[in-house]
C-alpha cells in the first residue's frame, strides 16, 4: 500500500500526482448511486425494446380518443396509461420511442463532439506552441459564443433532422472537451515519466499512445458521462424550438412543445415528457458525479 501519511504534511494534495497514485478510499464502490443506475438502465431498456413493449404505435392517430387523461385521472382509461395527445396518439408509447431519439442523438453527438474534443485537446496540449494557441483561441471563441444560435442556423439552412442536430450538438460541445482534455494533457506532459520516455527513446506517437492518452482517459470518460444529461437537454431544447427531429417521429422536447398550448386543459401532455427529461438528466448527472469522485477527484466542475 502506498502511504497516505507521506502526504499529510503537504495537506493531502499534490499537484504532481494524480488520483491513480493514491490508494482508493475504501467503500466508494458501495456508494454507487443505485437509484440513478436503475433509472438509466430502465431508460436504455425502454429505448431498445420500444417496438416490443409500447402498447400502441407512437404515430397512429385516433381522433375519437384525443386528449384522454392518464389512467389515474377522472375519465382516464387503462388502455392509455398516460393518456393521449391532441391527435389521439398514446403518450406512453410516444414517451418510449422518444427515449430512443434522446439516446441516439446523445450517443452520436457525444461520440463526434467528444472525439473531436479529445483529439484537439491531445494535439493542442502535446504539441503546444502556435498550434496550441491557435486551437485554444478557437475553443475560447466557441465557449463564449452562444453556439445554440449556430445550431438554429444549421436547422434552417440544412433542414431539421438527425444529421443536423448531431452536427449542431457536436459544434456545441467539442470545445468543452478540448479544453479539459488539453489541461489534463498539459498536466500529464509536465510529469517526469514523459521526459523519461523521451530519454528512453520513445517516438512522439508512442509517448502519446502509451504515456499520455491512458492517463487522460479517466478524465475523458467522466467528462463524457457528465455531458450525457447536457446533450439530452440541448436536444430537447432544439426540438422544443422546432429545430430538432421533425415530426411525426416523437421526441421529448417536441412533445413538451406540442402540449404547451393545451396546458390548461391537458397538463400531462407537457408535464410528463418534461418530467422524464428531468429524471433521466438527473440520473445521468448523479452517476457522472459519482464516477468523477471515484475515478478522478481532481476534476472539478467543468
Amino acid at each position, binding site marked *: 500500500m502506498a502511504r497516505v501519511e507521506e502526504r499529510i504534511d503537504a*495537506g493531502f*494534495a499534490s499537484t504532481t500526482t494524480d488520483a491513480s497514485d493514491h490508494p482508493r478510499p475504501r467503500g466508494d464502490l458501495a456508494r454507487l448511486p443505485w437509484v440513478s443506475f436503475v433509472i438509466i438502465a430502465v431508460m436504455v431498456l425502454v429505448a431498445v425494446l420500444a417496438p416490443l413493449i409500447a402498447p400502441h404505435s407512437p404515430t397512429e392517430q385516433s381522433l375519437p380518443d384525443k386528449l384522454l387523461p392518464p389512467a389515474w385521472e377522472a375519465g382516464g382509461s387503462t388502455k392509455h396509461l398516460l393518456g393521449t395527445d391532441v391527435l389521439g396518439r398514446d403518450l406512453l408509447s410516444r414517451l418510449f420511442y422518444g427515449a430512443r431519439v434522446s439516446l441516439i442523438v446523445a450517443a452520436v453527438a457525444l461520440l463526434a463532439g467528444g472525439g473531436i474534443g479529445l483529439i484537439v485537446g491531445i494535439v493542442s496540449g502535446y504539441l503546444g506552441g502556435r498550434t496550441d494557441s491557435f486551437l485554444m*483561441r478557437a475553443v475560447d*471563441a466557441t*465557449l*463564449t*459564443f*452562444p453556439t*445554440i*444560435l*449556430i445550431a*438554429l*442556423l*444549421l*436547422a*434552417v*439552412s*440544412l*433542414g431539421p433532422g438527425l444529421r443536423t442536430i448531431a452536427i449542431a450538438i457536436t459544434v456545441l460541445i467539442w470545445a468543452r472537451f478540448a479544453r479539459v482534455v488539453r489541461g489534463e494533457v498539459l498536466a500529464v506532459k509536465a510529469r517526469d515519466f514523459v521526459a523519461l520516455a523521451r530519454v528512453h527513446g520513445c517516438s512522439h506517437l508512442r509517448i502519446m499512445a502509451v504515456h499520455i492518452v491512458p492517463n487522460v482517459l479517466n478524465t475523458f470518460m467522466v467528462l463524457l458521462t457528465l455531458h450525457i*444529461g447536457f446533450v439530452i*437537454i440541448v436536444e*430537447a*431544447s432544439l426540438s*422544443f*424550438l*422546432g*429545430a430538432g427531429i421533425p415530426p411525426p417521429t416523437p421526441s421529448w*422536447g417536441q412533445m*413538451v*412543445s406540442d*402540449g*404547451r398550448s393545451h*396546458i*390548461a386543459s391537458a*397538463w400531462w401532455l*407537457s*408535464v410528463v415528457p*418534461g*418530467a422524464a*427529461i*428531468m429524471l433521466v*438528466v*438527473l440520473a445521468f*448527472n*448523479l452517476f457522472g458525479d459519482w464516477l468523477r469522485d471515484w475515478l478522478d477527484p481532481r476534476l*472539478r*466542475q467543468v
Partner: protein
Amino acid sequence: MQRFILRRLAQSVLLLFVLALIVFALARVSGNPADLLLREDATQEDRAHLLRALGLDRPVHEQLYLFISGAVRGDLGESIRYRKPATEVFFERLPNTLRLLPLAMVGALALAIPLGVLAAVYRGTIVDRVSGAIAVLGIATPSFWLGIVLIYIFSIKLGLLPSSRMGGPSHYVLPTITLGLFLVAGMMRLVRSSLLEVMGSEFVKLARLKGLSQTVVIWKHCLRNALIPVTTLFGVYFALLITGAIVTETVFAWPGVGRLTYEAVIFRDYPLLQAVILLKAIIVLGVNLGVDIVYAYLDPRVRYA
C-alpha cells in the same frame, strides 16, 4: 493595459468576420439562398428577379463582398416575415430583452454567491446538502419545461401571476425565475468549489494566524480570489442567458429578441435569423471585452503581466 484591450478588440472583430463567413456559407451549402427567401408559391420570374436584385447571379467572391460590405453598413437583408430591414426588427425588440436579462443575472448572482459561500463554509452539513440538491435539480430541469410548469401552477391553478406577454412587475416574476434558475445552479457550484479551494490555501492559514476571524477571512481574503473564476465565466454565463432567453421568451410570449429568434426559425426567415445571430454576437463579444477588463482589475497578476 491599453494594448491588452486593443488586442482583445482585434480578436473580436476577427471572430465576427469568421462568423459572418459561416452565415454566408451556410446559406449556400444547401442550394441557392434565394430559395430560402422565396415563398412557396413564387414563380420562376419571381426567382430570377430576386437573384438579380440580391446579386446572387454574380460570382461567389462578389456575393461575399456585397454581403460583408452590406453587413458593415448595418444592412443584413430584409426579413421575409416582417417585410422590414432585419436589423430594424431586431432593435425594436431588443429593449424588451434588456429588461429581462439584467434582472435574471442580478437575481442569479444575488442567490448563487451567498448560497455557494454558505455551502462551502458549512461543508458537509445540511445547508451544503440542501443547496447541493437545488443545484443538481436546477441543472437537470429543462428551462422550457420549468416555464410551462410554473405557468400551470401559478397562472392556471392558483391564478396568482400572469402567464404571458409584457406588463406590470408581476409579468416579470415567472420569466425571471425560469431564465435565472439554471444559472443559479451552475454558479453556486462554481462559487462553492472555488471557495473551498481557496479556503484550503496557505495564505488563508496565514490570515487566520494573524488572528482574523473566519468570517473576515472568508469574505475578505477568500471571496475575492474565489470570484476570479466566476468573473472569467461571466461571459459564458451571459452567452447562456442569451441562449436561455430564446426558450424563456418563447414560453412566456415575451416580445424580445429571443422570441424573435424562435420566430425566425419557425418561419424559416433566413435573413432575419442571420441578422439576429450577428447582432447577438456583437453584444456577447462586447460583454466579454468588458469582462476581461474587470478581470484584469480583480487579479493583479493579469494587470501587471
